[in-house]
Structure formats: structure tokens, C-alpha cells
């Protein structure tokens, strides 16, 4: 059973830290010395890092969000991930910067080798059920790739919470029944209940628990065990420590079967990975 981190930013640490709202910087755990991003984000460094954290695969995210200051673009992420099969690259589309976002997605998948898409409505400032982004969903469904969509709160400057309500994804799940949609951060803040409810309602919806303190998962999702097929482990690195979060999930009062699903089996299915 592989361990998969479904939410891993290949963003330089300096850039990442700069974009955190000053008062909230202390929230991040920078104590783990192996977690210093500029050391990790080299070709050898990242493999060593994954080994040291006990991770087999990580979903590596591009993010084109000038208004919130983080912007590793698709080309850079594609290049960084090339030849590192343990990194699964996901491209990012900002519908305000691409005239033909669906076409761009197809290029990213066919020419640059991306395996999935990340959308960031709260950074890019649109409702994820707006018509503006619908052609992208249609193309992703056609291409058979999964889409990660940020839901819930964020500590980064320039983020607007109103675009993060998971309920918007009910429309998307209904309109694109074959599209696999991952609600990143599982509705973080005050939408945990509806994020998980949606995964029960729609076969094609999942949550990832990145950026949530794993030891508290059962208080957010009391029915986690029952929903274990629809929950994906992720860290939001370079935020929290990957290793510590895996250990915290292993320590939860859940069945081994559920833990294995959450830590990697579900992800392996979605990503088509060899166990």
C-alpha cells in the first residue's frame, strides 16, 4: 500500500512565507529542519525528502495566483517533475489569465505531461460553479483527469473566503458526473459537514485533509471511518510536517483498513498508481 501526499506545493519557501499574512506566520511549523523548502526543492533533495518522510508519491501543484503572490507556473512545475516519477504534476489554470482555459488544460496534459488540475477559486476570485470555468471541467472530464479545488479558509494574503464554500461544487458534481473532484482542505473552517456530506451524495466527489491538524480529524468528521473511501491524505507542504501528520493519522482510533485507504489506497486508484 503506497503512502500518497495528495497536496504538495513545489513552491520556494521564501515565496511561500512571504505570502502568509504576517500575524499568522507562527501557525506554520518550520521547526522540522528537513522541511526547509529551498533545500528540498532540488531534483535529489525532493527524493531524499520523500524517503525521509515515508511518502511514496506526492501530487506536485502549480499555482498561478499573482494576487496572492504564489506563482510556480505550469512550465516550471512540469520541468521540475520530469524524471521524478514519484511526483505527480498537477497544472493550475487561472481563468482570468487564459482566454481559452480549456485549450490550455489540454496542452498542459498532452504536451507537458500533467496528470491532473488544481483550481483555486479563493485566490483567483471566482465561484467554482461559474460558467467561466465550465469549459475547463468539460475538458478535464473528457481527458479523464482529476481536479483538486480549494475549499474553505486560507491564511494567504489576497484570499477571499466566499469563493470557498464547498456547496458550489454540488453544481459541478451534478453537471460533470464523470469528473473526479477533490475538495482540498475538506471545507476548512466551518464547512466540514457539508464537504463530507457532498462526498456521500456524489460518487465523484472526494475531500483531501491537507492543512488540517490530523489529530483532530474525528472532531471535524465524526463519520470518518464510514467515509474512508472518499478521504485523501495530503499535507499542504511546505506548511506542516509530512512525517508527523502521517503518524498522527496512524494514531487515530480508526480501523487499519480505513487508515490505509486514506493514506494512499484511494489516491492510488484516482491517480492510477501501482501499489
Amino acid at each position, binding site marked *: 500500500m503506497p503512502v500518497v501526499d495528495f497536496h504538495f506545493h513545489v513552491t520556494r519557501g521564501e515565496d511561500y512565507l512571504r505570502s502568509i499574512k504576517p500575524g499568522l506566520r507562527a501557525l506554520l511549523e518550520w521547526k522540522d529542519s528537513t522541511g526547509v523548502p529551498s533545500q528540498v526543492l532540488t531534483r535529489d533533495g525532493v527524493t531524499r525528502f520523500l524517503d525521509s518522510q515515508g511518502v511514496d508519491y506526492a501530487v506536485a501543484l502549480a499555482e498561478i495566483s*499573482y*494576487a496572492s503572490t504564489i506563482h510556480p507556473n505550469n512550465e516550471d512545475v512540469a520541468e521540475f517533475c520530469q524524471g521524478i516519477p514519484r511526483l505527480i504534476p498537477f497544472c493550475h489554470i487561472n481563468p482570468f489569465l*487564459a482566454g481559452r482555459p480549456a485549450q490550455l488544460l489540454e496542452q498542459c496534459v498532452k504536451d507537458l505531461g500533467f496528470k491532473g488540475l488544481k483550481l483555486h477559486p479563493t485566490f483567483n*476570485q471566482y465561484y467554482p460553479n461559474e460558467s467561466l470555468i465550465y469549459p475547463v471541467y468539460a475538458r478535464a472530464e473528457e481527458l479523464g483527469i482529476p481536479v483538486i479545488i480549494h475549499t474553505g479558509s486560507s491564511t494567504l*494574503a489576497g484570499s477571499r473566503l466566499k469563493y470557498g464554500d464547498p456547496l458550489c461544487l454540488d453544481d459541478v458534481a451534478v453537471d460533470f458526473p464523470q469528473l473526479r473532484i477533490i475538495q482540498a482542505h475538506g471545507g476548512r473552517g466551518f464547512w466540514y459537514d457539508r464537504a463530507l456530506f457532498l462526498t456521500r451524495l456524489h460518487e465523484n466527489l472526494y475531500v483531501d485533509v491537507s492543512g488540517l491538524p490530523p489529530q483532530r480529524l474525528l472532531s471535524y468528521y465524526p463519520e470518518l471511518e464510514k467515509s474512508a473511501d472518499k478521504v485523501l491524505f495530503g499535507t499542504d507542504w511546505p506548511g506542516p510536517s509530512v512525517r508527523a501528520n502521517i503518524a498522527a493519522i496512524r494514531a487515530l482510533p480508526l480501523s487499519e483498513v480505513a487508515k490505509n485507504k486514506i493514506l494512499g489506497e484511494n489516491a492510488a486508484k484516482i491517480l492510477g498508481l501501482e501499489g
Partner: protein
Amino acid sequence: MPVVDFHIHPTKDILPWVYDWIEGFLPPGEDPRRYLEKTLTKEGIVRFLDENGLDYAVALAEQNPRCSGVITNGELADFCNGVDRLIPFADVNPHLTAAPARELDRCVKDLGFRGVKLYPVYQLFYPNDRTLYPLYEKAQDLGVPVMVHTGTSIFQGVRVKYGNPLLMDDVAVDFPDLTLILVHGGRGFWYESAFYLARFHPKVYLEIAGLPPQRLLEYFPELEQYADKVLFGSDWPGPHPKKNIQAIRELSIGEEAKVKILGGNAARILRLLNNT
């Protein structure tokens, strides 16, 4: 009185359909790429101003990667530097910065910009959205005018719903000391509401770039009566100013109104003359 073109785009990095548009205004056979190459130099642009009978032109930054093209604020500042007859206006795209007011402040104080243009239909936002309000407040404080695209555009990817001039009524009411310029005068099907706003709000102006000047009286029957609120602009390298200036000189309105529209009002707004 000087002749002022309130609307030119010195943009080189443009999308394919914009070349086609430019080509339509050039003599048959002239290549739009070569035309821009030779005109968008410091010598070329002065030659352009002279040939078109312009004393000044407002040069616009644009950061429209979806619909038209990109010349950033920094690039535009460099282009205008040393050419006193160009009046640089910044562009603040709310999807490219989390701090629109700070970006405007930087453009005005550090880069010497004299105003800002917003492109709602190209950048997809309602101009009365609260995200823009800090920018309007800053512009009012700094005393620089804000141009806002209103009405239609023929470029791909444009969404016209953001172009209704009535959206600017909110802004005019909330920032009564801010000079607002309704670019293209509500082109297409909002001439009446754009004209109404310019008539009603003391600091709101109508700019007529991209409209066929010979038809202005059809769009704005009371043009002469409100000539204090109307600004000439061309939208070059689309329509060329020389021809459009001539067409305005031939309109059946008084000489005084023509002089105001062609530059008198602009000179006042932009403080181009020592005694204004």
C-alpha cells in the same frame, strides 16, 4: 488650445486578432507588425504625434493577456520616459494584484503616471465591485483621473456585461471628487446612459475613442450643449487620429465646442497648461 488624443495603445505584445484589427486601418499592403515596430520607438512616436497633428497623447498601459495584449506599467513608463508629449496612464488589473490601491500609488509616485485606466470587459470584473474601491479612493486622494472602458469591444474573450456605464453611477456617487472618464461613451447600446452620467455628475466625462466621429451627433444629440464633458480619443493603432480630428472639425457644432472636445477639456483635466 492643444489637440490631445486621450486614448492610444503603444502595445507591441498583442494577440493575433489585434493585428487583424490594426491592419484594417493601414494602407493596403502595409504589414501591421512592421508598422508597430517602426512607430513604437521614441522617435517613431514623436513622428506619429506630428503627422497626426497631436500636441499630446494619453498612452495607456494594458495587462490584458486574455483579450488584447500586454504592456506593463513598468514598460509603459520606460516608453514614455523623455517624451513629454506622452501622458502615461497605468493599468491595474485586479486579478494580477491583491493591492490595487498600492499599485496605483506606486505607479503615480514612483513611475510618474498621471492617471489609470481600467478594463472591466477585458479583465472580467464589475467596475463597481468593492475590490476596486480602495483604488478609487486612492485615485481621488492623489487627484488623478480614472478611465473605465464602457460598451462593446470586438476582441475575442471580451464579456460585454461588465461594460454597462450605469455601473459607474455607484462610483461617481461614492467618490464625488474623483474624475471619471467613460471610455468609448458606452459604445454599442449604452450611449444614452453614458451621456446621462456625464451630464449629471460634475466630475464624469465622456470619451469618444473608437466611435466614428461623423456619427457623434446621432449618438449624442446634445453634444454641443455638453461639450465641456466630452474628450477626443482615437484608440490608435486602431483608428488613426488625423482622420478622426478632421471629421470632428467638420461636425455641425460651434468652433468653441470643437476646441474643447479636441483638447481644451483634456488640457484642463491633465493640467497641461500653466494657467489652468
